[in-house]
């Protein structure tokens, strides 16, 4: 077998049963792997109405066929499950090295079922799989857990684990691997915590095979050249990381500031990638088989916020920065280091604190609620303290751990939570950039930018000149991005390869690797299949067109200042066309014709 391995591992933590099953190759061909395969497994095996934190939810860890090969930046894996944050079918994507190690150990997917009564971890060495007692590491941070488990298993083991927030079922908790990489969004950490699964340690000594070695290598070298020649994929991301976007978004007038009250931040330059590169950057970092190296190894020497780790990404720097009116980059890094070491989604954490600050400003939260902290805009010290409290589950941190929707709702003002389907939106203002707003509203896992990153065209100069303020053509743009991204997420490739290559190159690499032919159209169609299956599952769980919306602020309150002053999101003008391009009816339900076309 080439690309794929042909074996899936299934572990039931309730009964302790461990099974190695043949991978369903029809599913592998139609859904490729990773996100697609996981979505198909959850769709087939988990009732949409199941309790996300109950024994009937399943947690799928799935790399893709590219994972473990030298397909450029092709080493990713996905965590797929029913989200406890919002009940959607959530696929959370992570880099690092864990995914490839699962492939070398001999698996296309790991399906975790049931719940353990006591804390456990999985130790996988090739075909030897054990469920081991994790009581000694339960409660430990991510880095300490990783090192402790390596001492008990193998020095070279790759470890995916949760920290105390995941153990305490925080709805915004993440699953971390290699200490600094995150399957961050949609509360997947809490699902792992609900199963009392602290960690998975893997060592693999097997091989990922190639159907047509010479052709695959040629396809890979061609893709590498194109990515290297692209100014973003080539030099840009490596030099500045993603955080260089702070100034770009600010100058465009679309940098959400102070909980989306404004769209320009007066101190943007103090927290952007240029400042990071000058002050705290140690060196770039890359995931397995990555040729882009957007990762940042960073260090803070200021004793108030000292630490060394990785990040922050743009969204993280925004969440702890502009969204909270904070201009202290050292504090932002500290917040990011804490979230990595405890396993929290930095986007949701930052945005939840920003929401808390607005609630405090308006008097809906008082100092009594906030353990005496003054949640005024720009208070970096309070922000870091709130992150710490959320990490360790102390005081007001316990409320923040539930995310901004539940926080705002608890004081009677859910409209002040900047979320879609209860998940916090990241760092692009839909009032200034229409296409990303449509993507936020229609993303199958709630407010998310990577599902359909139209920013690449609307702001970053990729593709033909595209006016961020226009609604024409955005429906088609969103669908195109969403489908290609879904296919790409299912292959194991990193979305950043799109700065350089597209469906043609990806399909070519996939075909020569697996020996199973994919045309570019079939590759994208697989993505559409994944997207529609996710949609169907969400609809079965009670989501409707009413949920494909944005917070009232973005639909009705014009941006007060800056280049996009006076604009609102014109979602209502784009959504009907979006449904139509998707082949859905006017309620956003896939038509029988569409389902037949996708073999659903």
């Amino acid at each position, binding site marked *: 077998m080439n690309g794929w391995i042909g074996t899936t591992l299934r572990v039931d933590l309730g009964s302790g049963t461990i099974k190695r099953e043949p991978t369903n190759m029809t599913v592998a061909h139609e859904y490729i792997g990773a996100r697609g395969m996981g979505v198909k497994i959850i769709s087939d095996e988990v009732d949409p109405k199941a309790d996300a934190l109950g024994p009937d939810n399943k947690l799928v860890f799935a790399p893709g066929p590219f994972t473990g090969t030298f397909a450029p930046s092709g080493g990713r894996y996905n965590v797929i499950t029913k989200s406890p944050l919002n009940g959607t079918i959530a696929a959370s994507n992570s880099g690092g090295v864990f995914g490839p190690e699962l492939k070398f150990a001999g698996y296309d997917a790991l399906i975790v079922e049931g719940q353990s009564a006591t804390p456990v971890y999985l130790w996988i060495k090739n075909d030897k799989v054990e469920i081991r007692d994790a009581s000694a590491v339960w409660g430990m941070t991510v880095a300490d857990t990783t090192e402790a488990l390596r001492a008990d298993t193998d020095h070279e083991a790759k470890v995916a684990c949760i920290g105390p927030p995941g153990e305490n079922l925080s709805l915004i908790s993440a699953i971390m691997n290699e200490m600094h990489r995150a399957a961050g969004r949609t509360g997947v950490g809490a699902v792992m915590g609900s199963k009392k699964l602290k960690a998975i340690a893997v060592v693999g000594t097997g091989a990922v095979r190639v159907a047509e070695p010479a052709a695959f290598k040629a396809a890979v070298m061609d893709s590498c050249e194109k990515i290297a020649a692209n*100014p*973003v994929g080539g030099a*840009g*991301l490596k*030099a*500045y*990381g*993603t955080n*260089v*976007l702070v*100034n*770009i978004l600010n*100058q*465009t*007038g679309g940098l959400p500031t102070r909980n989306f009250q404004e769209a320009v931040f007066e101190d943007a*330059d103090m927290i*952007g*990638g*240029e400042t990071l590169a000058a002050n705290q950057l140690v060196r770039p970092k890359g995931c397995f088989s990555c040729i882009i190296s*957007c990762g940042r190894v960073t260090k803070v020497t200021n004793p108030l916020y000292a630490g060394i780790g990785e990040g922050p*990404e*743009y*969204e993280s720097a925004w969440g702890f920065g502009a969204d909270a009116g904070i201009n202290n980059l050292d504090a932002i890094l500290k917040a990011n280091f804490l979230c990595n070491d405890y396993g929290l989604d930095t986007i949701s954490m930052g945005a939840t604190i920003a929401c808390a600050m607005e609630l405090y400003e308006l008097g809906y939260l008082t100092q009594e609620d906030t353990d005496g902290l003054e949640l005024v805009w720009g208070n970096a010290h309070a922000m870091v303290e709130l992150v710490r409290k959320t990490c360790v589950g102390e005081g007001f941190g316990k409320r923040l751990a539930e995310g901004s929707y539940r926080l705002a709702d608890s004081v009677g003002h859910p409209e002040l939570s900047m979320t879609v389907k209860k998940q916090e939106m990241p*760092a692009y203002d839909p009032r200034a950039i229409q296409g990303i707003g449509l993507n936020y509203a229609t993303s199958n896992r709630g407010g998310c*930018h990577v599902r359909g*990153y139209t*920013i*690449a065209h609307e*702001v*970053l*100069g*990729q593709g033909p*000149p595209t*006016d*961020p303020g226009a609604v024409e053509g955005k429906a088609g743009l969103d669908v195109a991005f969403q489908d290609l991204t879904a296919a790409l997420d299912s292959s194991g490739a990193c979305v*950043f390869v799109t*700065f350089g290559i597209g469906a043609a190159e990806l399909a070519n690499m996939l075909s020569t690797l697996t020996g199973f032919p994919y045309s570019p159209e079939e590759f994208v169609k697989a993505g559409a299949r994944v997207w529609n299956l996710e949609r169907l599952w969400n609809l079965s769980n009670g989501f409707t067109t009413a949920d494909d919306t944005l917070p009232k602020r973005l639909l009705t309150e014009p941006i007060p200042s*800056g*280049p*996009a002053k006076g604009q609102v999101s014109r979602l209502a003008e784009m959504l009907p066309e979006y449904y139509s391009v998707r082949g859905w009816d006017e309620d956003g339900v896939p038509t029988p014709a569409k389902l037949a076309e996708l073999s659903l």
Partner: protein
Amino acid sequence: MRIKYFATFRELTRENSYQLDDHLPDVASLLEVLSDRYGTAFRDAVFDQGAMSPVMILLVNGRNVRLTGGLATPLAAQDEVSVFPVVAGA
């Protein structure tokens, strides 16, 4: 007119921003004046065989000049111009 530089343009110009008191009619003449000021490396980063470099993003008051006529985009005395390389995504 205020010109702000970001990412690699800060290294090319060794400045974060520049206040220009002369009124220049359009983006083309602005880039000529700036190229004279900063030298060949800057010129090569903003022009590509007489046309605007495809790996530069130039905003006038937040609007991408590719949408407003490119090099022919008119400039007013109080405009704010931002110059970025095509450099990232997230």
